[in-house]
């Protein structure tokens, strides 16, 4: 992989000592941009939330609890989780502009690389040369495995929920097999889940 930009800043190195009482440090907008771009570059192949945790805890920007709260909330909002998490961390640290700079930072290295590769692969007049096509097919097969491994932890949690498996399988059948429109499936499945898990006074939260 060619990396046209500067080498990534190593996140944990500049916090070698554990401060006895972590003094909250407020990053500047430029800090957010730089650190999240660095997180993106060390996070090729996934694991972005773990890299973000190391980066923000190592700089004493956040406590472990703050991070865990943001992480939970990032799972609840729609959209790509890693980008949502960057937006949340940025927002907590520096409000709306902080969210913007964190998101721009985490997206920029990948955008540059993806656009460069896209222009080459989609722009060739006679289509891709055969070996490159074969390579992309091989990569796609492995990407399928990556997707499946990413689904496994979610499915494990789903298995522990009341009605989790039937609702997940109904979603799979509706969207994957029957190719139904997503919003009605979302309405039925999430509606059923809300009823199943509605807050009841006799239950402990």
């Amino acid at each position, binding site marked *: *992989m060619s990396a046209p930009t500067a080498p990534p800043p190593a996140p944990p190195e500049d916090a070698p000592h554990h401060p006895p009482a972590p003094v909250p440090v407020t990053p500047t907008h430029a800090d957010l941009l730089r650190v999240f771009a660095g997180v993106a570059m060390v996070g090729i*192949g996934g694991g972005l939330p773990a890299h973000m945790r190391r980066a923000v805890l190592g700089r004493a920007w956040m406590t472990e609890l703050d991070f865990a709260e943001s992480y939970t909330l990032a799972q609840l909002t729609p959209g*790509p989780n890693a980008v949502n998490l960057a937006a949340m961390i940025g927002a907590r640290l520096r409000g709306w502009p902080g*969210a913007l700079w964190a998101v721009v930072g985490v997206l920029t290295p990948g*955008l540059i690389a993806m656009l460069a590769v896209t222009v080459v692969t989609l722009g060739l007049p006679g289509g891709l040369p055969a070996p490159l096509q074969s390579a992309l*097919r091989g990569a*796609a097969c492995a990407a399928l495995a990556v997707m499946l491994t990413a689904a496994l932890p979610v499915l494990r949690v789903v298995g522990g929920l009341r009605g989790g498996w039937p609702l997940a399988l109904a*979603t799979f059948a509706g969207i*994957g097999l029957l190719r139904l429109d997503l919003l009605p499936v979302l309405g039925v499945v999430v509606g059923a889940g809300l009823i199943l898990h509605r807050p009841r006074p006799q239950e402990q939260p």
Partner: protein
Amino acid sequence: MTDAGANWLDILLTFTRLGLISFGGANLAEIERVLVGQRQWITPGTLASGFALGQVMPGPNMLAMTHYGFAAGGWAGAAAATLGFYGPTALLSAAAALAWRRLLGWKWLPTIRSALLPFGGGVLLAGVLVLARGSVQNVAGAVIAAAAFALLTRTRVNPALVVIGAAALGALIGL
């Protein structure tokens, strides 16, 4: 390149919708239904190869959306797809983070989480099915996918390396 190129506003709105309805990960089944089936902006092959490219890019692995946007409408399409897919959901996340203190004690919060998770799990499974249809076209492909899965679940190897290795293997055997 596909046709002359779709309208950037159309691309922006389509990708905004795709971003807002993905929970817990990439909603590849819906992405395929809309981009390949309904709009015919990309082919199943572009869907699969773009997704694979996304796995070896730095940062979030759904940068495939930028690839699809470019295929649909060139540079303006790539910009519109990226902005549409990431912008509104990031705004929503920032708003949620700023409102978090008030949300924390809300008794419906765990309920919403428990209701969304099975949906997210089913969507991820449907995405696996869609990707399998687009990428595994013969026995060799299935073997690569199975070997990659075994590697990823049994070792702590970087997924990007597995994808790059599979690409080399694919080029060697002329998959």
